[in-house]
């Protein structure tokens, strides 16, 4: 840090001339660093250092018999050919492809509806849709786990009353869908708020001009609102890529209800957790975490690249 501020001191005043406004440049620079210091210190200590340590750590292999040896990229080679990790990645990718479009469509629908001023009690509705986001995901998973209960859960009981059979929400076939439902419930409100805020930022003049040209509310929504929402939608999608690939809390909680369906490697994060804390394969778990990180980075980048291209063409 000190060298950087030193260069700043040297260059800035040289351009402007020492005497006139001399003191200002360096003082600005120094105050700037002072302002970011609390963040940088916390960021370095809590994020960069552990990350670097985990990266270093992933290059070793510690065995119960035989001790600790440096193995270079062996753990990464293993990760990229690990069928359990690949299956987990496939599962969360499928989850992303199904859950995210549904959630985004709902969020967009609610945001447009609220923005159209056609909904009465719009504040209350907005709050109600946003509320699940305030429920901790662990609590949400527990609650939904209870609702899904095969014999005594409310849905099963109700189905039983009317002489039907409730689907096996916790069975192997429906589990991913059941988790997707919980996540949708949790995060639709959050995405809706982001989109709604972006909608409120669109200048009203555009709508006025459109109605003068004879556009109805559907036309305005389709041709003005949604195109202008693109940056906000892209942002939500990037968050969703990250969230989907890091799926952990919900399956981890549901695991106690269906241990044979949600296996240890159900999602990549769950797999890393179990590698570390059940199998004591700490080094490999660190490598798996990094591989997951790379996948998410690549996924987000590709997504942004694709949407950028389309908006330019």
């Amino acid at each position, binding site marked *: 840090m000190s060298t950087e501020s030193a260069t700043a001191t040297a260059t800035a005043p040289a351009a402007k001339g020492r005497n006139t406004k001399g003191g200002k440049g360096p003082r600005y620079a120094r105050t700037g660093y002072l302002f970011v210091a609390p963040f940088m210190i916390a960021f370095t200590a*809590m*994020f960069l*250092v*552990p*990350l670097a*340590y*985990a990266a270093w*750590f992933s290059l070793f292999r510690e*065995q*119960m*018999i*035989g001790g600790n040896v440096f193995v270079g990229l062996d753990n990464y080679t293993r990760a990229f050919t690990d069928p359990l990790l690949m299956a987990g990645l496939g599962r969360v990718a499928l989850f992303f492809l199904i859950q995210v479009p549904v959630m985004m469509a709902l969020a967009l629908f609610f945001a447009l509806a609220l923005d159209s001023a056609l909904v009465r009690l719009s504040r209350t509705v907005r709050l109600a849709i946003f509320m699940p986001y305030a429920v901790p*995901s662990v609590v949400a998973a527990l609650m939904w*786990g*209870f609702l899904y*209960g*095969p*014999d*005594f859960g409310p849905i099963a009981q109700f189905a039983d009353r009317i002489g039907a059979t409730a689907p096996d929400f916790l069975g192997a076939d429906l589990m991913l869908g059941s988790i997707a439902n919980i996540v949708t419930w949790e*995060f639709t409100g*959050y*995405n809706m708020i982001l989109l709604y805020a972006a909608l409120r930022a669109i200048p009203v003049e555009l709508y006025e001009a459109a109605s003068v040209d004879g556009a109805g509310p559907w036309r305005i929504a389709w041709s003005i609102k949604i195109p202008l929402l693109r940056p906000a939608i892209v942002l939500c999608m990037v*968050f*969703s890529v*990250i*969230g*989907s690939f*890091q799926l*952990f*809390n919900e399956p981890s909680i549901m695991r*106690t*209800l*269906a*241990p*044979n369906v949600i*296996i*240890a490697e159900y999602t990549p*994060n769950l797999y*890393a*957790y*179990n590698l*570390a*804390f*059940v*199998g*004591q*394969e*700490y080094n490999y*778990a*660190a490598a798996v*975490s990094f591989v*997951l*990180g790379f996948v998410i980075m690549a996924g987000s980048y590709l997504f942004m690249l694709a949407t950028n291209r389309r908006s330019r063409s």
Partner: protein
Amino acid sequence: MNPRFRRRTGLAAALASPLAFGACARQRVDPPEQVSRAEIDEAMRTPTELNFWTWVPGIEKQVALFEEAYPDITVDVTNAAQGAGHYAKIRTALRAGRGAPDVAQIEYEMIPAFTITDHLLDLRPYGAGELEDRFVDWVWAQVSGPGGEVWAIPQDTGPMGMLYRADIFEAHGIEVPETWEAFAEAARALHRADPEVYLANFPPSQGAYFAGSLWQAGADPFAGSEGPVLNVDVTSEPVRRVAEYWAGLVAEGVVSTDPDFSDQWYQAANRGKYATWLTAAWGPVFLQSTAASTSGKWRAAPLPQWESGGPAAGNWGGSTNGVFNITEHPIQAAVFAQFINTDPECTKAMATEQFLFPPTKALLEDPEFTGMELEFYGGQKVNEVFAQISETVSPEFQWPPFNDQVRADYGATVGAAIAEGGDAAAALGDWRDRITAYAEYQGFTVEEAS
């Protein structure tokens, strides 16, 4: 979904922080041949603070008795977690080289996991060798190492038995089955008579129950493993018999497969979905508190048998107190572990107030313990039933040095196959392959039974 972003960093931090100190030299106690009486007496008069990690409710009582007997020693009790979380924290602290407890609660099945990493203190030099006669043989075998080491002091056990609903049995004219064959027939008959009721529930991911079942069937899959050599025999005839028995009953649809200790399972137990609970000696009091609405309807009996010859039982659960060799106070820690598990007043309170099923011969023969009549079981002397079962547990059962991994692999292979009523024999092969692959990765020399 922004908040979920935090998770990976959290995981990275969790992975990194405990190990950051891993490089520090670990100071281990070099155990002396024998510690003299005088040395022990002197140590016990030296003001000392011991850290004790345990999940046992009400253990403060025994700690207080110990502190009364040795006023210079203070014991700090920490309830860090139960089961997996407890061991993960201990492992982390042991790797860090500091912050680990002097004494901890350790289940029998986890003792080899801490001896393979050379973390447990042999308690023989501190007088533990002389305690052998006080404990039931099979329990003592569980805490003994291949060289006669005493790795921990037994605290409670879980010889397995069967709790059954006398009212359901009576209503359907079911005799208490004495063989597994009779049990299977009763399961079919009961489910046919009342499709809402199952004679038993097979908890598919409960590896500890399955291990206890193998123990009863006479299997000993990891027998003879020592140090870097791991023997694996999970495809032997008795193992296959147990796995195929349950897979068969599940395939017929006459036993349920709810995960135990889940909401679903608690509700089902309360509402009479299960006519038995195949459990251990700690089960009766546990059930009493979780299925209160069924009071008076339950009875206890030994497990059905595979062979009509001699009765046999396995063990499920129970735990010990072990001392870690990073302790700075080996004498005090060893004396503490021995005291709370052998002092008559301590052990009596454990058995009659905390309802920990005792491993000591004295209590198992104590009429005040065996004669307790439990209302929940229609006034039956349940302790007596389990005390008799305890005598039929085989001393031949060895745990693998990485039991948590073996359990996880069991759930993914055998447990899953049984839950689906699938091919249990094939799943046992998968289980073996997973164990072998993991063991070899960890540097063991694996010897599979032919």
